[in-house]
């Protein structure tokens, strides 16, 4: 299904990507304004964040002096411009809850989140494709009925319930897998340790995304069975396997690409919950900790990071879609 792209088409796709990137700029600026505005309007005093425990012991004069130095009494737009300026120059500020620069926190924790979310996404997509094709093929059969019923029921189960149930069954009941963490207590970080600890969180995150993906594959495949080219292939007497995998599946997969792109926010949401339940040392768990301690620099950086990921994800999905399907106009 990979088509060789003509030069015009390649240019058109490139133009689309550039246009979408340009459109992402105002969205990101607006996101930063919203986050900053929420912080500026909140009753929380940034000086408390700056001083931490010393806030109580510092005298009023010292506090006022700090306020002047930090420019906390300036109008909000000056504060915003200063904050955004340092953000753009790469200075993300210092995280109070971790006691180190925000950039270091991200560098330390981002790889673990990418590992977890990436594994989960691959697992979910692979399972969804397999089960989706199977259930659509055998539509109305026992397996189809069981799988769709379970998938519909799973749509109503939040990720943290899945996580707790998985811990209860596989970690506590059967003692197959560790309860939480990246490694056993005191053990060094090694491939064996991490992969054993990865199974449950990645599995739970995959299961929490699975129902939507699976039902979508099944549904678009069933719709594809009714299309002319598939009916034609069947009429020519091609084996069912060829018809399903080579004729129906490619058309059914196209909207699936978009769906995976639009599910990214849910993946982030799931990661926040799953990392927090399993004490996974990723950035998503850092969201909760920084929120608990009103660690604004880290919280703002993480929010913007999530927005970037979501925008890039939907851009990537659209580019892939346009590259794969020559019928789609590349001007969206």
């Amino acid at each position, binding site marked *: 299904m990979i088509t060789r792209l003509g030069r015009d088409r390649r240019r058109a796709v490139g133009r689309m990507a550039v246009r979408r990137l340009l459109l992402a700029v*105002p*969205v*990101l600026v*607006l*996101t930063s304004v919203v*986050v900053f505005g*929420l*912080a500026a309007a*909140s*009753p*929380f005093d940034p000086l408390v964040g700056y001083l931490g425990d010393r806030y109580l012991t510092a005298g009023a004069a010292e506090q006022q002096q700090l306020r002047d130095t930090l420019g906390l009494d300036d109008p909000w737009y000056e504060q915003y411009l200063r904050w955004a300026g340092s953000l753009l120059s790469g200075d993300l500020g210092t995280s109070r809850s971790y006691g180190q620069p925000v950039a270091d926190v991200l560098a330390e924790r981002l790889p673990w989140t990418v590992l977890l979310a990436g594994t989960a996404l691959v697992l979910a997509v692979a399972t969804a494709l397999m089960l989706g094709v199977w259930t659509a093929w*055998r*539509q*109305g*059969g026992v397996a189809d*009925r069981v799988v*769709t019923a379970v998938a*519909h*029921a799973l*749509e*109503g*189960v*939040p990720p*943290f*319930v899945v996580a*707790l149930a998985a*811990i*209860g069954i596989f970690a*506590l009941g059967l003692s197959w897998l560790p*309860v939480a963490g990246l490694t056993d207590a005191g053990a060094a970080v090694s491939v064996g340790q991490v992969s054993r600890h990865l199974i449950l969180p990645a599995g739970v995150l995959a299961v929490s995304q699975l129902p939507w993906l699976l*039902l979508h594959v099944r*549904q678009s495949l*069933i*719709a*594809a*069975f*009714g299309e002319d080219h598939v009916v034609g292939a069947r009429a020519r007497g091609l084996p069912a396997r060829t018809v399903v995998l080579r004729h129906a599946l490619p058309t059914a997969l196209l909207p699936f690409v978009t769906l995976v792109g*639009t599910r990214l*926010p*849910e993946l*982030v*949401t799931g990661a*926040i*919950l799953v990392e*927090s*339940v399993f004490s996974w040392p990723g950035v998503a768990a850092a*969201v*909760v900790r*920084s*929120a*608990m301690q*009103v660690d*604004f620099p880290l*919280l703002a950086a*993480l*929010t913007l990071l*999530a*927005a970037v990921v*979501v*925008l890039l994800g939907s851009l990537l999905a659209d580019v892939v879609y346009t590259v794969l399907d020559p019928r789609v106009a590349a001007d969206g």
Partner: protein
Amino acid sequence: MAEVRTKERTGDPGGVGFGGWFDAGRVWTRARGSRRRARLTARQRLFVGIAVLAGLVVYAVLVPIIAGLDERLVDLAAAGSAPSLEHPFGTDQAGRDLFVRTAAGLRVSLLIAGLCAVISTVLGVAVGAVAGAVGGWVDRIVMRLVDTVNAVPHLLLGIVIVALYRGSVVAIVASIALTHWAPVARLIRSEVLSLRQREFVDAAISGGASRRWVIRRHFLPAVIPQAVLAAVLLLPHAVWHESALSFLGLGLPPHRASLGTLLDEARESLLLGSWWTLVFPSLMLVVATLAVAACGAAWRDHVLPRRRAEEWA
């Protein structure tokens, strides 16, 4: 191929779920000799959903009254006891009866979620109707705002809001309501845009109707069925959102029972082997979510029989 019935709506197995699934290509399976299963009609699904929901509401409202127990009542002698006749759902680590506590939690969660669903629907309808009706730069700005709210995962934005305005129910309600209006606004806007093309609107405008009049008399009544549907479908999301916040320790304070705080407590008691602290509150959460979703799906079939399900997930 006369038998291929495309775009026909049929029930889901189990009668639940957000998606309305179409049944194209049935010939394929008939050829394979599968049997037709008995399906629930939309009306039956609505009744089942409403009955389950009514049961939950009765449980949430009446049990705390009838039991005559305070859900915060600590009885250390009975701490961590398994489900029994005296405590049908068992007790937690402080000996609080979970049957009563779950009812109280369900009530709090449903109340907060209902409030949030209504607020964000009203907000979404107002924003969407104005954007669609006014058009121009107002529309463009509003749509950028919608993009922005959609670009940040809802739970993350909600966490930012509750973190900065800590410890009040208002903050929780705001955190949910302010993150869920965007899809409603987009839906209502597109509905209004298509209404603008209709002849009765042209007639009203050429008859001298003001923009405000057209919005109030022609646009708003036309989008009300959609808005009600949106509110119903938002309810399970709001329940989730509230329980997720409380579960993470960012929502209601731990002594206030909500489904989220109960599950947060279950995290620890689960390690001590008290499976019932997890099972019963999460059962209530899941059943409530699915019942509302079933009602929403049935209502959608009723008001919008030909429309493909919007992605509310």
